[in-house]
Every structure is written in structure tokens, then in C-alpha cells.
């Protein structure tokens, strides 16, 4: 195993300081490490989202690589167009095209364009930073909002669980599927580095805690993100050409007794305030089933 250590991470920063992200925004951290891993030969494309805000105003590019802004539903298509143009110029092996979108832009309005791009085997990385709601427009529910969570459009808590986007992407038979989490930046770095070297469609889904949307103190971001992993709710893994690898930070949670109770995670966020016992039971079942499946895939 080629372990990346902190000292191996590129020192160069690709985001200029002074962006307009909220204090404690995990997405900013995720983006920072992803761009470090990707390096200068990268073209980004970004739909409407909090990330648009990070990229700042006309005339001043906030990143040290170019970004093509694109309407909300089009991220996969926009990336496809960039790749096609690079192919025409014979530059596609040199320059990496990376789409970065929120959960709404990925699992809801952008799912068609993403599915099309994946089905065509488009050679690019698609990264979804998942803060589990439409944050940019004021915390409305998305298909990725988890069960029981309050948003401005689910004032009584969301009735249905989160859409399983990872299964959907895996079903496309693409080169690389991985989960990540803002609290594990080295893992993010490693996964983007790996995806950067692979040919075909690479999909990385990164859980991205959001203080105003989830309702916790900005200084708790890293802790909240870790709890998602430590409770077993958000296992870190990768699927390389169909082969499942549990990432090292998640390995020990194969043992159910090592997992923290889910209530530690849910209880730390105001969006789950008043969550019902039934919902909590559903979470427990969901986590147990998830890990049973992981165990089966590892044993095979």
C-alpha cells in the first residue's frame, strides 16, 4: 500500500486566500486538498452551488487553474464538452478535466448529464461534495438529504433516506468510484491522486459537513465529519474497476463493537433535533446492512 503522509502533500496552494466560504466549511477544505492532488494541468467545471461563491467574481479567478462555470443541470455535459475539445487538440492525456458539484447538482438536477457522461466513458473526474441539501439557496432538501433531517422544505424532518448515489454510479460500470469525507484530507488527497492517473470516468463522493446547514458550531466541523465515519454511517472506500477496497480509516469499523452509537452523530446536529426513535432504528438497520454488504464484498 502506498500510503501518503502529510509531508508528501504538495505545499503549493491552488486556492487564493479570502474566499467567501462560511467559517468551518468542509467543502473549502475538500477543494483545497483535491486541487493540490490534481495539480496545475487541470481544467475545472462547476455548476451553481456554494462552490460558485468560492470561485468569486468576474475578472478574478480564485483558483490557480481555470474554471468553467456552467448551469446547474449541466456539469457532466460541460465536462464532456471540454474533454471533446481537448481530444480534438490532442491534449486530453495531458490535461485532466474535473467536474466539482454539490449534492443537488449531482443526485438531483444534474444526474442525467452525469449518467450520460459516465455511460459514454468520458475521461474525467466527477467529484460531488455532499453537504446534504441545497445550501447555496438556503438549506432546502435534496435527494441526498438524510432521513429525519430538517431543512427549510422539510420542516418536519425528511421522510425518506438519502439517495444511494454510489450504487447508481457503480452500476454504470465506471473505472473508479470512491467515498471520502472532509475530515480526512489525506485520504482525499490520495484518492484524487489515484483518480488523476486512471482513464475513464472517475466518481468521488465526499461528505461535506456544513455548519449553518447542519446546525453546529463551526469549530466542530472536523469532529462531526469524523463521527460520520466512526459511527459507520459514512464508510470510506473505493471501487477500482469493480474491485472493492475499504480505506484504512474505515477498516476498524468492520467490527460493529468499534462503531460509535449513531446518536452521537445525529445528536450533535440541530437538523436532527427531535428525530424519532423509528428514524434512529432505521439508521441502525441501514448501517448494519451497509457493513454486512461491505464485509461480503471484502471476503470475496
Amino acid at each position: 500500500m502506498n500510503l501518503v503522509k502529510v509531508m508528501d502533500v504538495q505545499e503549493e496552494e491552488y486556492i487564493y486566500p479570502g474566499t467567501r466560504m462560511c467559517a468551518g466549511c468542509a467543502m473549502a477544505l475538500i477543494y483545497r486538498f483535491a486541487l493540490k492532488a490534481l495539480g496545475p494541468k487541470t481544467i475545472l467545471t462547476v455548476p451553481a452551488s456554494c462552490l460558485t461563491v468560492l470561485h468569486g467574481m468576474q475578472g478574478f479567478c480564485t483558483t490557480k487553474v481555470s474554471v468553467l462555470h456552467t448551469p446547474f443541470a449541466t456539469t457532466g455535459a460541460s465536462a464532456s464538452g471540454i474533454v471533446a475539445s481537448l481530444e480534438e487538440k490532442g491534449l486530453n492525456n495531458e490535461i485532466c478535466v474535473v467536474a466539482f458539484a454539490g449534492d443537488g447538482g449531482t443526485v438531483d438536477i444534474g444526474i442525467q448529464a452525469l449518467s450520460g457522461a459516465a455511460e459514454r466513458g468520458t475521461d474525467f473526474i466527477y467529484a460531488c461534495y455532499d453537504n446534504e441539501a441545497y445550501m447555496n439557496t438556503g438549506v432546502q432538501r435534496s435527494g441526498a438529504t438524510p432521513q429525519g433531517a430538517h431543512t427549510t422544505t422539510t420542516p418536519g424532518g425528511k421522510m425518506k433516506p438519502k439517495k444511494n448515489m454510489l450504487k447508481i454510479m457503480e452500476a454504470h460500470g465506471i473505472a473508479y468510484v470512491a467515498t471520502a469525507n472532509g475530515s480526512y484530507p489525506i485520504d482525499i488527497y490520495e484518492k484524487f491522486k489515484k483518480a488523476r492517473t486512471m482513464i475513464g470516468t472517475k466518481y468521488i463522493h465526499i461528505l461535506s459537513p456544513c455548519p449553518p446547514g447542519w446546525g453546529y458550531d463551526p469549530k466542530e466541523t472536523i469532529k462531526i465529519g469524523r463521527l460520520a465515519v466512526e459511527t459507520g454511517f459514512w464508510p470510506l472506500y473505493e471501487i477500482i474497476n469493480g474491485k472493492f477496497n475499504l480505506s484504512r480509516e474505515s477498516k476498524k469499523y468492520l467490527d460493529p463493537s468499534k462503531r460509535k452509537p449513531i446518536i452521537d452523530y445525529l445528536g450533535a446536529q440541530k437538523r436532527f433535533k427531535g428525530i424519532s426513535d423509528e428514524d434512529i432504528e432505521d439508521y441502525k438497520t441501514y448501517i448494519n446492512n451497509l457493513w454486512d454488504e461491505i464485509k461480503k464484498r471484502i471476503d470475496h
Partner: protein
Amino acid sequence: MKESKKTIIVTGNHAAAHALRQAKVGVISAYPITPQSPVVEKISDFINEGKMKARFLMVESEHSAAAACCAASATGSRVGTATSSHGLMLMYEMLPWASGTRLPIIINLATRSCGAPWSVWDDHSDFIAARDVGWIQFMCEDNQEIYDTNLQAFKIAEDPRVYVPAIVAYDGYILSHTMMPIEVEMQEDIDAFLPPLTHHLNLSDITQIKGVGPVTTPDIVKRTEGTAPGYYEFRYSLQKALENSIAIIKEVHDEFVDKFGRSYGNGLFKTILTEDTDTIIFAMGSVSSQARNAIKKLRDIGIKIGLVSLRLFRPFPVNQLRDYFKDKKNIIVFDRDIGYGYEGVLCYELKAALYGLKNAPFIKGYIVGLGGRDIKDEHFIEGVQKALKQSEQGEIVHETEFLGLKLEELEL
């Protein structure tokens, strides 16, 4: 293989495909829809046979097709595509995006009515719906014009004084599926007329770091690094580029006439049998084609009448039309479209353009041929006779009239 100038017999769709091939389009992203599909099928053949080097992205919707076209153009490729009706409707979000980013993309539009109810047949509703999104819009009358206008459109759209995308429209079925002879020019002559794209945007040049299409504000933004325009300034420059493009459209048309010997009026509109009369039919596309015939019949029954066929719908050639119509007495407009709740769009555009002219002509509009209903000579004759009577009596009727309706045959 060296290609020589030759005459081929092709449909309008294939005329468009030949033009895209010879324009050496770098990226095409498209989605099939009737009656445009043969354009993308023909291009697939060209690529398959090695006659065309373009990257062809067959995507999963027109919305994605348009988005991919925008992205490929911003990455520095020459980009063209084709669509119709619902396809253009689905692309709609991307249309002001392309013009706002000043991407010189060309869309071939085989016109078709918009549902509901379903109709695959022709009218200009889709073309008209793209009126206010900042694109140059041409309407063609025959297959040669489709081929020629495509080549001109790339040169115009890519002119650094313009950088505005363009729609080249032609009537679905009536042209898209009708075979006609067209002259296809030698590749080297096309190359001399249309050199490779020099774009103001090229994301593939990673030494030039750019944020393309980000957030703007109501006001300009001043910072130590420089001053950035607000949305207002961006959109002002688009409007100016469109206004100024009229001169460039004429310039490119003149150069085309010099090089290839085929002309389309003054490049903005065509005049037919107008020398000896102050009574004019104003129309575009298939309506003009039919009117060419009808004016002869009208002349046979003693009505001296000519035709002005509009080629450039956007930017609307206001000054040139004002100048042309200033001495005319009667204009009868036939629209294969309607601004629902008002009247035919060409009709009210022309009225607005001629506003304030001293002795402004009498203008009367009719709706014809929506959803592919046949437009016949007798519709023109009926409309013109009625209009001339109203003109004589100084009567101005604002009610929108449909010619060729068959209400009386329906048991309602």
C-alpha cells in the same frame, strides 16, 4: 483527397451537414429530433468515412448537447450542431449562456412547431422563441442558402468584432427533406474564406488561467488587481456587438459574393419584383418561397406587388428596413408564427421598426401555415386584396387573422 467544386443534389439537412464538414467543425454535440436528425446522421457518416475529423458527442439530451457545445467552444474548438422545436426548447437555458459568454457556436435549426399538441410539421415558433437570447438569427429559403449561410455564419460569429453565436434556420420538411441541387465549393476555397478559429477563450491553454462565466454584480467591481464589469456592462457589450454585426454580416456576404458568385439580396433581406411598385409582401423562409409564386399570380390579376424576404431576423436590420420602406405605401406581412396574445411576430417587429417614419406605410399582418398547414397562392391573394381594401378605406384592424383555417369543416 482533393475535392473539386461540384453540384450535388441533396436535402436541406444534408446541405447543412456538408457545410459543417467543410467548415472543419472541431466538436459537434447533438441529439436527434425530427426533422433535423439527418444532419447528425450524415455527420456520423462523414466521420465514419474519415471525411471529417470532428469529435462527435452524441449526448443524452439537447440540454446536454448545448452545454457540451458551450464547453467545447470555451475550450477553443469550432463548434456546430443542429436541432428542432422541442430540442431548441430544451436547449433554451444554454442560449443566453452561450451569447453571454460570447461563444461563436452555430446551431442549424430545421424549424418545427412546438407541442402541445404534437406536431412534427413546420412553422417558425421555435425560431421565434430564440429571439431574445442574444443570438444572430438567419432564415434560409433554399438548400444552397443553407449551405452558404452556414459558411458565412461561422465567419461572422467568429469575427473578433462580433463573437456572438448564430442560428441558421430552414423550414422543416419543406427544405430539410427536399432534394435540390447545390453547388459545393472546393475545400481550399472554403479554407481561404473561413480560416481557423481564433477565439477570445481557450481553456486548453492552461498558461492562461481564467474563470469563465462566474458571478457578476449589479455594479462594477473595483479591486487592486483591476476593475471587472458588472452584468449590465456585459449585456451592453452583447447588444453593441449585435448592432455592429450588421455591417460585418454585409461585409462577409459581399466577400462571399465576390468569391463564390452567389448573393442573397444585400445579405439582410432579398427583394423580388419590387422595382415598379409600392405594395410589398414581407415574409421569411418557406412563406417567402411561396410568396414568390403568389406575387406573379397577383400581378396576373392586376395587383402590382413585390416581395421582401427577410434573411436576417436578429439583429433586426431596423435602419436598412426603414430606409427601404420609407417610400412604400402598403406592406402585407405573412407570419408562419405568432406572438400569442398579440399578432404575428414579423408583423409587429416591422411595425416597431418603421415607427415614426413620415408617411409610414400601411401595415397589415396575417398568420399562415402553423403546424405545417399548406400555404397556398389563394391565401396570399385573399390577404392582399383584403388588406388593400382596408388600406384604401384607411381602416386599421388589430384583430389577428388566420388564413387557411377550416373551422367551417369542423363540427364544433
